[in-house]
């Protein structure tokens, strides 16, 4: 979660009241949850406006999506907490702590942590789309936390909106009374104030004991070079003062806070956070390991006997090697990963070495989009140039000795002769789709080794399809293909099912006769030949011609299944270079040199980043 624009020095006009702590009965903590793009962040905009938290001048669309990447891609990546003040129709003033959450399935860990800091949730459903996969997934998470729900149908301003039908769908699928479903437009602001009234009436104030020893749950954090680790907290019991000596219960670290404060949405210092409130504690800690998301902060002088339950660590689905393009940046990369982990609690990593790429890290992600975002954030926020290997899943390898290994990288697969069995993760998936796409979806799933489980009609036109499918197939390009096969109408949710033994083999890739560990992949035996061929022809196209001819081979054990040669480069010269061209030609050469630098030298062959990702696109028809 981030604090809107953490660290910025912007000031808002309505700050005085914020510093006054509310009595518990007048506090409401809630998250906004929904399927991706159903309008959570836009709704948050309207709530911030109505409550005067943000001035008209400072308002912009999806103002809580403050990260550059979020704005560029138009998608929420981090949950954002913000405190608002609302003068309700009952004449009383309420302090509302809102958390806007991401909708993309890869960021559901953000949602789950946000929900744990709340008593209620606003479930938003797009009036033109109806209930989709993450609508239900997020709903179940909220129910698991025993949160009170307010269902909202959004985008009623659109001509294609069917608010009554969607409200009906909510009643049938979710069991909330259609009459209680609010119908709003986050874009125009129509009926949005009803949501705030509903929050006051339908979401309970925080429980918790104001007089007990303090307990504050760290639900997120980020690193600030001046103030150290900033912990984002929800106070469950007692009070936290700026002057207190505090203790992190799991790590045992004791701190004197540099600052405590709230998000409105910028960070604004205050003196006290009391029971039920959401805010931040600037710990001053420079080492990131002492302050973990999920830990409980208490007073050193009067510690709570028990920490709060904390969080289950997110379980990474896919793993990839991240290597600095320049080997000298290894320590910077480790530092960056540690700092980014503060702001992305689902991130896990461990050091890894590769013969081809030297020293790097095996990083675990919740999905490919997550991987993409992490790579971009590392490159932008920490100014690193990275090389990522193709993602892989986690395999269980049963050795003949009976020992079971868990491996995250094809390179770690032991010798074939030692292996009794390889098991791969299988997932249960749910696809929500208009019925006309059942055929294409069936084809797609079958092609990806999937197995049909069941189908149920949600209404006359929409169905819910259930399948089982190997995760390795799911991560490759399943989602993109599903979207294109259904013109974007289908949505997908998945969860881990079990490990199943499969006939899997390791496909080695040899470049210039040397095996390149970072290009190896684990594939199903039946597909090994075909995939080997596709991979070799793909690599042949991606590896630029070099001064020597470069043979590329795919092999299973000693058996070469495919080969091709990248012909030696013959002509690469600026034909013309006279007096007027010197500077321009030098620039061209510099550009060419820069491009060359981005290639990774493996043996004496230069390989581009895309080659390591080639395995992701083996089904392309080009």
């Amino acid at each position, binding site marked *: 979660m981030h604090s809107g624009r953490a660290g910025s020095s912007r000031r808002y006009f309505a700050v005085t009241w914020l510093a006054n702590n509310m009595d518990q009965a007048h506090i409401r903590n809630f998250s906004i949850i929904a399927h991706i793009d159903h309008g959570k962040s836009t709704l948050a905009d309207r709530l911030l406006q109505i409550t005067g938290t943000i001035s008209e001048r400072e308002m912009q669309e999806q103002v809580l999506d403050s990260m550059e990447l979020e704005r560029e891609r138009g998608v929420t990546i981090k949950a954002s907490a913000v405190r608002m003040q609302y003068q309700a129709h009952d004449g009383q003033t309420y302090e509302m702590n809102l958390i806007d959450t991401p909708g993309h399935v890869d960021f559901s860990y953000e949602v789950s942590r946000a929900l744990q800091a709340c008593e209620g949730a606003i479930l938003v459903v797009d009036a033109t789309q109806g209930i989709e996969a993450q609508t239900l997934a997020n709903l179940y998470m909220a129910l698991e936390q025993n949160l009170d729900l307010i269902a909202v149908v959004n985008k009623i301003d659109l001509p294609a909106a069917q608010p009554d039908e969607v409200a009906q769908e909510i009643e049938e699928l979710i069991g909330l009374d259609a009459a209680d479903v609010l119908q709003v437009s986050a874009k125009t602001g129509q009926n949005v104030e009803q949501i705030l009234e509903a929050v006051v009436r339908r979401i309970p104030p925080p429980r918790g004991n104001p007089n007990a020893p303090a307990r504050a749950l760290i639900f997120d954090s980020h690193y600030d070079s001046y103030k150290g680790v900033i912990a984002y907290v929800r106070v469950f019991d007692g009070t936290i003062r700026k002057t207190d000596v505090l203790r992190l219960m799991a790590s045992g670290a004791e701190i004197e806070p540099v600052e405590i404060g709230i998000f409105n949405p910028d960070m604004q210092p205050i003196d006290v956070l009391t029971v039920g409130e959401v805010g931040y504690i600037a710990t001053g800690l420079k080492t990131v390991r002492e302050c973990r998301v999920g830990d409980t902060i208490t007073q050193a002088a009067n510690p709570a006997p028990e920490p709060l339950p904390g969080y289950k660590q997110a379980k990474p689905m896919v793993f990839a090697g991240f290597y600095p393009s320049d080997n000298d940046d290894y320590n910077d990369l480790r530092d960056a990963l540690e700092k980014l982990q503060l702001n992305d609690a689902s991130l896990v990593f461990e050091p890894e070495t590769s013969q081809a790429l030297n020293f790097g890290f095996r990083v675990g992600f919740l999905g490919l989009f997550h991987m993409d975002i992490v790579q971009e954030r590392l490159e932008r926020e920490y100014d690193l140039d990275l090389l990522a290997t193709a993602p892989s899943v986690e395999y269980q390898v049963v050795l003949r000795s009976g020992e079971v290994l868990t491996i995250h990288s094809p390179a770690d697969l032991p010798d074939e002769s030692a292996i009794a069995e390889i098991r791969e993760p299988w997932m249960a998936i749910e696809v929500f789709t208009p019925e006309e796409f059942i055929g294409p979806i069936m084809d797609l799933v079958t092609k990806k080794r999937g197995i049909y489980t069941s189908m149920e009609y949600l209404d006359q036109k929409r169905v819910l399809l259930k399948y089982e499918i190997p995760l390795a197939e799911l991560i490759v390009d399943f989602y993109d293909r599903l979207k294109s096969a259904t013109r974007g109408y289908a949505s997908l949710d998945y969860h881990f099912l079990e490990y199943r033994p499969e006939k899997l083999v390791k496909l080695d890739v040899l470049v210039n006769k040397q095996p390149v560990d970072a290009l190896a992949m684990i594939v199903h035996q039946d597909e090994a030949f075909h995939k080997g061929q596709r991979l070799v022809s793909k690599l042949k196209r991606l590896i630029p011609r070099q*001064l020597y001819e470069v043979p590329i081979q795919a092999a299973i054990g000693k058996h070469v299944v495919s080969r091709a040669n990248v012909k030696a480069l013959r002509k690469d*010269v600026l034909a013309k270079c006279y007096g007027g061209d010197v500077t321009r030609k030098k620039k061209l050469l510099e550009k060419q040199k820069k491009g060359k630098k981005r290639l990774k030298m493996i043996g004496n062959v230069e390989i581009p980043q895309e080659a390591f990702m080639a395995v992701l696109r083996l089904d392309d028809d080009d």
Partner: protein
Amino acid sequence: MHPTSHSDPAADAGSPPPDDAALALYLHIPFCHVHCTYCSFNVYTRRERLIRPYMAALRREIALVAAGTSRAALSVYFGGGTPSLVPADEIRATLEACGRAFALTDKAEITLEVNPEAADLDLAGLRRAGVNRLSIGMQSAHESELKLYARLHTQSDVEHMVRRARAAGFDNLSLDLIYGAPRQTLRLWQESLRAALALEPDHLSFYSLTIDEGTTFERWLRSGRIPLPDPDLAADMYEWATDTLAAAGFEQYEISNWARPGKASRHNMQYWRCRPYLGFGAGAHGYAAGIRYATVLKPEDYIARIEAQSAPGPFPFSAAVDWVERIDRKTAMAELMIMGLRLTGEGVSYTDFARRFGISLDSVYGPAIAPLKAAGLLASDPDGRLRLTRRGRLLGNQVFMAFL
């Protein structure tokens, strides 16, 4: 020994240019009747009415710049654009201006670029005015290719031009040809080159076609109207031309240039030896006093700026100068390698490098050079010169990059 001897002051690529080193003069004529489809030069069509005022401005600029120096000039080059659009009397007046300004010797090489369609060009008048070398834009002997390039001439125009030039007393003629063009086959190229040889030129330049940004070719490539040329085929064409020209008695002296003995272009050599030259006109480049500079692109702006200039500026600048880059020692070294290695005949001399920069070539570039030698792209020859190998000539960029 190599074709160029050390008694020639312009011959040694490496020695530091003394402050009185002779200059080459480049005069840019930015006018063309039609913009050829592959051309990315600074040229303008439908501006012919500007030619006379432009030439007047050119003479004024020459005088203004020359006021800041007492150096001699060893060459004048009218490049374009299409210098053959300029009436002979203007050329004469301009050469006279050069002579007044720079002490042009009789031996000075004076080149004019000529488009073959200029049937009524007063060649005898140009010769009398002092022009002693013509560079003729032949490009291809094939109608279909000339059409694709939007050239305005035919092969018989080229033949006619060469005959007339010889009759007018020109003993130094160069032909330009394009290879590696879209849809060009090896056979088409061989025919063009043979047709060029049949005209018995003194000098030949071959340009491998590059599809530059902003050209018609670039648009056509994107729309699929022309295919991207095959670089391996272009390599075959180059190799064949290299052998054919050697057999015909031409010496290769630069990656893209061949000449009969003694007919290498002295003006162009100046560029590759990183020796000083002045650029006059719109969009012209110069390199003197450790500075690379360029002038404003548009002829209208150029004329206005020069007309408004009242007094000489610091050498080598005129009021038309629009861009300047100071060449520091490191850059000068890199440029000497990148430009000097283009000279396939003389290459870069170890002793000249050391004399010019006070440090040995190996101590600066040894580590960069070693792998290129190992790959067979560069060779240090027993005469103390570093040169591109035959393979290296086609892979020049792979070599040049190492010096940046």
